[in-house]
């Protein structure tokens, strides 16, 4: 089958599958992955793994867009009112989840690169499924506000942690003798290199956007900037997703109002690329390997849940957040999707070039993340509902919100 015909079929199946799952209350991304599994080597062989390797640039493109859009959400506005509180909660829940998952996976597998990578990936939280629940129940209050801010920032933290984890795992798997220079300078060079490169391209895109007003031209220049950032990141061996996040972050914060159009245009452009991307992730999933990875997957889910819950509690407690936030925020941070999956695929693409150990690590990460995503995407939304219900933030009736002065 030729590639264009196959891509057309993938888009139609993906769209139908996503909508079908949405109808039964399961996030669309789960539908894409399950239909991907169906089309992949584990079942029908419609999308052979050889083809997935040949279409790697498409995957890079999706990763680049994910990074760019995550960067675009990291706006100063989120820190305006509760900056210190959000930062304390974010670091606490993200780092504690990473520490718990890394420790548990390492104790079980004795595989340090795998443990660090899974630890870094676990801090990401899927905004879409979480926000859907908040909106469905018209939730309002301090917990709702905190959830929104944390899910907006969480993926950014995950990308930064991933930058470190990726560089360390790269060093450990490269087979070079370990030294302080290799363990410290190389990872820092890769991370700051990505940030500087992405930041510079973000500034250039901002400058170009000042003169380019037409929507079509804006879309072209934005995509060109993302492709340039991605190509240069690959050339310098920087993290592609982190580079694009830096570009998005700079663009979103230098002239927020002027550049909003760039993000809205990209947002309307990416859905087909995301569908193909998630179907490819499903197609990469090897059902035969799942029983072998059962324990790692279990440790990942347990460690992530415990780390996020306790981290959110400590962070909220230490920063003086309200009781409802302290008690229930952790419950609302279980969902995982786009960013974690994207990073897993990034790991596979990169580490499979480093020999059998790298390929095995890449396959394990993809299988663990894809399988656990299916699980946490199913338990995530009901947990969010439980959190906002317990916190008393679900709207009781369909009426305009009351203002303080009218309540008395």
């Amino acid at each position, binding site marked *: 089958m030729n590639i264009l015909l196959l891509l057309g079929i993938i888009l139609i199946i993906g769209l139908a599958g996503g909508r079908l799952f949405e109808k039964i209350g399961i996030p669309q991304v789960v539908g894409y992955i399950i239909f991907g599994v169906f089309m992949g080597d584990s079942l029908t062989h419609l999308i052979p793994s050889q083809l997935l390797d040949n279409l790697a640039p498409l995957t890079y493109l999706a990763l680049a867009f994910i990074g760019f859009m995550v960067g675009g959400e990291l706006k100063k*506005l989120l820190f305006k009112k509760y900056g210190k509180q959000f930062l304390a909660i974010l670091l606490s829940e993200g780092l504690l989840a990473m520490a718990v998952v890394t420790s548990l996976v390492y104790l079980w597998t004795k595989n340090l690169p795998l443990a660090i990578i899974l630890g870094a990936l676990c801090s990401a939280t899927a905004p879409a499924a979480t*926000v859907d629940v908040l909106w469905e129940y*018209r939730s*309002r209050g301090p917990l*709702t506000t905190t959830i929104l*801010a944390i899910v*907006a920032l969480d993926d950014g933290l995950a990308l930064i942690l991933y930058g470190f984890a990726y560089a360390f795992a790269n060093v450990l798997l490269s087979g070079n003798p370990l030294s302080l220079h290799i363990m410290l300078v190389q990872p820092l060079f890769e991370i700051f290199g990505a940030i500087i490169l992405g930041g510079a391209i973000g500034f250039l895109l901002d400058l170009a956007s000042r003169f380019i007003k037409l929507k079509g031209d804006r879309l072209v220049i934005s995509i060109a900037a993302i492709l340039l950032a991605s190509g240069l990141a690959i050339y310098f061996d920087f993290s592609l997703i982190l580079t694009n996040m830096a570009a998005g972050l700079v663009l979103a914060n230098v002239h927020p109002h002027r550049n909003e159009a760039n993000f809205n245009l990209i947002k309307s452009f990416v859905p087909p690329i995301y569908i193909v991307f998630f179907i490819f992730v499903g197609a990469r999933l090897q059902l035969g390997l799942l029983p072998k990875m059962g324990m790692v997957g279990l440790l990942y889910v347990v460690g992530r849940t415990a780390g996020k819950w306790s981290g959110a509690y400590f962070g909220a407690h230490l920063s003086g957040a309200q009781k409802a936030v302290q008690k229930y925020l952790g419950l609302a941070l279980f969902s995982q999707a786009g960013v974690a999956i994207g990073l897993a695929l990034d790991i596979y693409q990169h580490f499979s070039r480093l020999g059998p150990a790298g390929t095995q690590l890449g396959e394990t990460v993809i299988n663990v993340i894809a399988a656990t995503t299916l699980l946490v995407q199913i338990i995530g939304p009901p947990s969010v509902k439980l959190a906002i219900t317990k916190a008393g933030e679900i709207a009781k009736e369909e009426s305009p919100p009351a203002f303080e002065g009218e309540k008395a």
Partner: protein
Amino acid sequence: MKKKKVKEFKPYDAPLIVRPEMIIEDMLRLILEYPNKHHLCVVDENDKLIGLISRKRIFRAVFSHHVPADSRLHELYALLTCETANDLLTRNIITISETDDIDKAISAMIKEDLSELPITNNQGQVIGFLTSEMLLEAKIKDFLKKRS
């Protein structure tokens, strides 16, 4: 209409001026009191225009839970947590001066899909609005003049 200047369209549509610290409830009362005004002009202590708030944005903030959940997260956050005019205003706005050609104003309105433009003086203070209705009224007068 080609050679006309903005100042020929006097009297302008009067602006509704508010301070950045005005709360949403008061803004809501104000736009209900003046149903024909499309924007609130937010000014600083020197009365310099710092941004605009449209009726549509106030509506979105009041009913923020109906804004689609797949909107960008920072936008949802901004609408959900806004309390004052400062939280809602759009800062990067297009303004014109009285001495500008009317062509420039019309081009900006069409290009940016705007129904009115704030007119500012040399100190950056808003002195009124040039609206699409004012331009259309002038056009119809031109048509009538040509026919007669």
